[in-house]
C-alpha cells in the first residue's frame, strides 16, 4: 500500500500540468456550485426570516372558518375576545400581537397626488404598542414616524408610495366594508413610509392603528388574527400544534397556523425554484465531470503500456486499479480542496457584505422575500457534500477509465 501511495503521489507531481488542469476543472465546477448554493441559501434564509419578521410572524391564531376564506380577508370570522386569548398566551410567555386585516380601495385625488385614481390594497390594522413584540415593522419606517394609537394615520410601503406618488403628510381615502357589510370610508394621513426588506409588504400593504380600524369597522374589540412569536430554531409546526392544543379547551373555535402554513405559496415557489436551480447545478457538475473525465481518460490512455507492463510483471488487476484510483483520488482531493476554497472565496463577499440588487431588478418581484441588499449564506453541508463529491467523482471516473484499459489484453496494452 505504501508503494502504491508513493507511486500515486509521484505520478501526481510528475504530471503536474495534467494534475493542475484536471483539479482546476473540478475546482471551478465545485466553486461555482458553492457560490450558487450560497446565493440560494441566502435568498431562502433571508426570505424565511423576512416572512416571519414582517409578514406572517411565527404562527397565527385564526377563527376556525377563516382559513378556508382567507383570500377574501373576511371580517365575519373573528376572534371575539383577543384579550382573553392573549392573557392565556401570556401565561405561557408567548409574545403575541392582535391584528385585523381587511381589503380596501384606496382613492386618490389629483393634487396633492399626481392624478385621480384608485387602487385595491390590503390593510393591516395593528396595535402600535404590542406589534413590535412580534413583528419588526416599526424598525423599517424610513420617512415620517410610526403609528400612534387612536390616530387616523396610515403607514405605506415605499414601493406603494412610489406607485401612488405619495409623500408623508398626504391624505388618503380608503373605501371598505364594515364587519356587518356596510360601506365605510376612512380618511387617513400618511404618517410614515416604510422601506421593508420584504417586498410583499412594501408593495401592496397599508397599516393603520388597530383601535382606529375597530372604530370604523364596528369590530367591537374583535380582531381577525393574533400573531405569535416563537423562539428561533424551534420547530414552528410543532409549537403551533402545542399552542393550539393548549387553547382549544378554552377557545374551541380557534386554530393555530404556523408560518409554513401561512406561506404555502412562497414555499411552493421556493421549492419549484430550487428544483430549477438544481438542474443548473447539475449542469455545472456535468461540465466539470466531462472536463475531469476527458483528462483522466487521456492520462490513463497515455499510460496503457505502463499498465500492460505492470500486468506482465504479475501485478494483479485489482492492485493496478487501486494504484490508478489512488491517483484519481489524489486529483479529486486537490480539486475538492481548491474547489471549496474557490467557492468560499467567491461567496465571501456576498455572505459578508451582500450585493445591492435594487439597481439590477428595481421593483421587480423575483419571488423571494428579499429586496435591496441580497445576502448569501454559508452552507457547511454543501461544502462537505462538494468536497466528497469531488473525490468520489474523480475516483469513479478513474475506475471507469482503468476498467476500460484493463479490458484490453496484456499484449494489446504492451504493443499499443
Amino acid at each position, binding site marked *: 500500500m505504501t*508503494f502504491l501511495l508513493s*507511486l500515486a503521489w*509521484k*505520478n501526481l*507531481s*510528475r504530471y503536474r500540468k495534467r494534475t493542475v488542469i484536471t483539479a482546476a476543472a473540478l475546482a471551478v465546477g465545485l466553486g461555482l456550485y458553492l457560490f450558487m448554493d450560497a446565493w440560494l441559501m441566502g435568498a431562502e434564509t433571508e426570505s424565511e426570516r423576512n416572512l416571519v419578521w414582517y409578514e406572517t410572524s411565527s404562527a397565527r391564531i385564526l377563527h376556525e372558518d377563516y382559513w378556508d376564506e382567507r383570500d377574501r380577508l373576511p371580517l365575519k370570522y373573528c376572534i371575539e375576545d383577543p384579550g382573553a386569548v392573549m392573557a392565556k398566551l401570556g401565561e405561557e410567555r408567548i409574545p403575541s400581537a392582535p391584528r385585523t386585516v381587511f381589503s380596501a380601495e384606496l382613492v386618490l385625488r389629483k393634487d396633492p397626488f399626481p392624478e385621480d385614481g384608485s387602487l385595491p390594497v390590503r390593510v393591516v390594522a395593528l396595535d402600535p404598542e404590542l406589534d413590535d413584540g412580534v413583528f419588526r415593522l416599526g424598525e423599517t419606517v424610513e420617512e415620517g414616524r410610526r403609528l400612534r394609537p387612536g390616530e387616523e394615520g396610515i403607514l405605506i410601503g415605499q414601493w406603494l408610495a412610489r406607485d401612488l406618488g405619495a409623500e408623508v403628510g398626504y391624505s388618503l381615502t380608503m373605501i371598505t366594508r364594515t364587519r356587518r357589510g356596510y360601506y365605510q370610508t376612512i380618511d387617513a394621513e400618511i404618517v410614515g413610509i416604510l422601506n421593508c426588506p420584504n417586498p410583499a409588504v412594501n408593495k401592496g400593504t397599508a397599516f393603520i392603528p388597530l383601535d382606529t380600524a375597530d372604530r370604523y369597522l364596528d369590530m367591537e374589540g374583535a380582531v381577525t388574527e393574533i400573531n405569535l412569536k416563537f423562539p428561533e430554531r424551534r420547530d414552528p409546526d410543532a409549537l403551533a400544534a402545542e399552542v393550539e392544543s393548549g387553547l382549544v379547551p378554552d377557545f374551541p373555535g380557534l386554530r393555530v397556523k404556523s408560518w409554513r402554513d401561512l406561506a404555502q405559496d412562497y414555499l411552493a415557489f421556493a421549492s419549484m425554484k430550487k428544483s430549477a436551480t438544481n438542474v443548473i447545478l447539475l449542469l455545472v457538475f456535468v461540465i466539470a465531470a466531462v472536463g475531469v473525465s476527458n483528462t483522466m481518460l487521456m492520462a490513463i490512455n497515455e499510460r496503457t*503500456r*505502463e499498465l*500492460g*507492463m505492470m*500486468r*506482465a*510483471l*504479475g*501485478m*494483479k*488487476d485489482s*492492485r493496478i486499479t487501486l494504484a490508478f484510483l489512488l491517483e484519481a483520488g489524489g486529483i479529486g482531493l486537490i480539486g475538492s480542496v481548491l474547489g471549496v476554497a474557490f467557492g468560499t472565496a467567491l461567496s465571501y463577499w456576498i455572505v459578508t457584505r451582500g450585493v445591492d440588487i435594487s439597481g439590477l431588478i428595481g421593483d421587480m418581484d423575483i419571488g423571494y422575500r428579499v429586496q435591496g441588499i441580497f445576502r448569501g449564506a454559508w452552507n457547511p453541508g454543501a461544502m462537505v457534500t462538494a468536497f466528497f463529491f469531488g473525490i468520489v467523482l474523480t475516483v469513479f471516473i478513474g475506475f471507469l477509465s482503468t476498467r476500460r484499459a484493463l479490458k484490453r*489484453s*496484456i*499484449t494489446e496494452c*504492451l*504493443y499499443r
Partner: protein
Amino acid sequence: MIRMDNVSRNYRNGDIVVRALREVSLAVEKGEFISIAGPSGSGKTTLLNLVGCIDRPDSGEIFIDGEPVSARTKKELALLRREKLGFVFQTFNLIPVLTALENVSFVLSLLSIRENEIRERSRAVLAEVGLSGKEDVLPGRLSGGQQQRVAVARALVKAPGIVLADEPTANLDSKTGEEILKLMEKLNRDHGTTFIFSTHDPMVMDYAHRLVSLHDGTIVSDERRAA
C-alpha cells in the same frame, strides 16, 4: 523447463486471419541462452508472449516446470509470471516517475518480501548490472543502454527461472546492444537463469548458445552452438 506442444496462435485482422504460430513445438532446458530469430512477422513476439503467459494459444499446450498453463485462470497466470518469469521489453517500459532503484524494487514489492530485503536485493542487482551510483536517478535521465540495464535488473531481481526479452537491443546502438548481451550472458552463466530473447539482428544471434529460427510462424531451424 519449458515445453511447447503443437502450439498455434491466430490473430484476426479485420476479415483476415493471420496465422502467427503454426503448430510449434519447442523444449527449453534450464540455463539455456536461446535466441528466437526471424524476420518481422515470423512469430517471434507471439512465441515469447505465449511462453511468458501474457497470451494464450488457440491450440496446443505449453508446460512450465512440467505444469500445463492453458487451463490456468488469469489470477493464476499473474502469480506464475510474478514468481517464475522475468521480462525485458524492447522499449524498456520503466515507470518514468520511479528511480532506477524503485523500478527494480517494484517487482519485489509484488511479492511478500520485507522492505529492507527489497532495498538490499535491488541495490545488489543494480550493482551487478553496473549501475552503482545511479540508484536514485529517474529513467528519463539515464541513457538507453542504462535504461535497458535497469530493465534487466528488474527482470532478474526476483531470481526468476526464465527471463524473456523481446528484441532487447532493438532500441540501442550496436555497442550498447553488445554490452547488454554480454551482461545477459554473464547473468546466465553466473545464475543459471534461462534467457530467451528474440531478434532479427545477426550480431545478437551470434551471442546465442542456441538459435531457433522462425519463418511464417513455423520453426525452420534449431541449432545449438558452443558457449
